């Protein structure tokens, strides 16, 4: 696992934010590694454990707890659609189906071990997430780090065009 110098320096700087306990830097480091590599590999888990002088289980416990941390790569562009009440009232479920249709993602049925679905060519992936705190503009979604509100089903193809 190659960590470029810039990332290594950034990691060292982030650790200084937690002068009382290095363990506090676990989640920030996982975020940085996932941003760089796209997901958290087995190697990344042991790397973080060694870096912060922890047991690997201490890191694994976090990676499997937080839904934003994933142990498998997502698509080149990752879509998160909110499914909680206000967005569901406004059509969040059909919205996800629309994304799947236009992004060529096939939803397997009843599989709850992997919580996101990828297109065959790996370009897009989609998952449901819980309340994104913008219920007044439901339904909402995120594509990568970009946030979109009041997303109509009709606007989906145009939206996806921005992410190639």
């Amino acid at each position, binding site marked *: 696992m190659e960590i470029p110098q810039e990332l290594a320096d950034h990691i060292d700087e982030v650790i200084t934010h937690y002068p009382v306990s290095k363990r506090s830097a676990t989640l920030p480091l996982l975020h940085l590694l996932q941003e760089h590599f796209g997901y958290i590999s087995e190697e990344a888990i042991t790397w973080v454990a060694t870096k912060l002088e922890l047991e690997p289980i*201490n890191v694994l416990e976090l990676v499997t707890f937080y839904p934003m941390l994933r142990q498998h790569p997502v698509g080149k562009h990752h879509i998160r659609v909110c499914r909680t009440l206000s967005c569901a009232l406004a059509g969040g479920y059909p919205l996800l189906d629309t994304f799947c249709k236009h992004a060529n993602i096939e939803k397997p049925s009843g599989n709850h071990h992997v919580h996101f679905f990828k297109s065959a060519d790996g370009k897009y992936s989609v998952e449901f997430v819980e309340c994104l705190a913008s219920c007044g503009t439901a339904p909402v979604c995120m594509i990568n780090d970009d946030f979109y509100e009041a997303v109509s089903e009709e606007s989906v193809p145009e939206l996806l065009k921005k992410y190639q």
Partner: protein
Amino acid sequence: MSDPVPLLNVQIDGVWHQFPKGTRVIEACAQAGKFVPRYCYHPKLSSPGNCRMCLIEMGMPRMGPDRKPELGPDGKPVINWMPRPQISCAQDVAEGMGVRTDSPLVQDCRHGVMEFLLINHPLDCPICDQAGECELQEFSVQYGTGGSRFREEKVKKPKHVHLGPRVTLDDERCILCSRCIRFMKEVAHDDVLGFASRGSHSYLTAHPGRVLDSNYSLNTVDICPVGALTSSDFRFKMRVWFLKETKSICTSCATGCNTLIGSRQNVLYRQTPRENDDVNSAWMCDYGRLNFHFVNSTDRLIEPQIRQLSNPETTSWTAAVSRAAEDLKRFQPTEIAVIASGRMTNEELWFAKKLVDSVKTPNYDIVSRTGPADDLLLNSIRNPNTKGAQLLGLCSDQPGAKLQQIADGVSQGHIKAVVALQEDLTAAGFKAADLERLGALIVMDILPNETTKRATALLPSASFAEKRGSMINVKGRLQRLNRAIQSPGNAREDWEILRDLIQQLTGANGVYLIEDVFKQMAENVPQFQGLSLSKIGDLGVQLEGAVSAAPVTVSA
């Protein structure tokens, strides 16, 4: 002298009691005779309060306008009961606290928790090792609702996880109490277990790159309230309600962890630790715990044998002991050596010393046995009773120091008769070829080895699980072994064999009860003054004064 701990007044189920400050509420209830059911709480570990089984009603004194408790007609504080139930495992008693351990609310809480614990629990009782000592079973009978209204699909989890070489995990049975995680972190100092995933899908695991191979891993099996963590050694071997449990001590090192030996029909099935805060807390190491299979071996020596010409022949005890005595009488004191063992009980060592005195030999010692110690229980001295050997005069401050000299004596031919007690001499610096040239090799042991094969008189004796006696641990604590099973075949207890041998040698009157052996010892060994085998008790007795190797002269 520190100040005495203050006593606090606490009302439990309407009765006022007093408890020392610092007493946990759940322990106070137990002391008052009111057992509060619990899963995640363990007195030797931190209290996370996650199982919610120990919920009780709690209240504090109602304060008057003068900031003092209002007193009721009985002169005691009036209790303001909190509407919300509280856990009792994570709080200490406070002055004027009230506790209800069995009110309708508390019963309802317990019904609720039991129901929740059982909805995703697999119906494994028929194949689960924990059956018979399972707190889920017991508490559901005592505190549960007796029926199930769960009609959904249960959560599925891994069922056959080899967490380590000695522990097998069934994640579906796990109630996520975290006792094992806390034990490994807080006691064993090997933070290798944790929970993965979230919510109802959480499961216990180790990181794939690490194994639960600590020398204390099996303690997690003891403290697991259900059958999630199981001992791979004991898995599927025996139903626990068939086991006779004998209180004894471990003999694999000088710590002398207190144990329970689980046996049935003269077969040993398992050893578990017995709590003793002066020795081993509530734990024992895996090495000592599993070091019992040799007792069940089918190779056990079961018949006395004597060697006529070059072949061993099974014979009677009388014949074997007579032969041994006759052999010894043929030699001068300096031509005889007695090698005793740090694994012998005090009673056996007492007779071994008598043997040494009766043949008047200067050549005697025990075999020293050492290994790496850890910072928990495993001692570097791997003999359980070196202190006893020292106290009773079988060795000096340096056990085994004389062995090389004795081995050389055998090699060079001026030691011609050796008595080997529970030790394989070829593993203690003696050469097998030299042993073959001995005029007499009297061996008392339990399993065949290179020494037993060359014995002129072979006297099969008893393992640690087949005898009653005492030993002294490395800290000078006198502790007791008890007999769990009978010796196989015609094997006999060591002290009785030695007593018979001495009787043959000296004609002196014998002792016939082990309690009398101890009495004899107590009359002659100052440290044992006033003690008896029964007075030692289940938890042992700390001996006063230094237990050093000042050899005590013993009258025959």
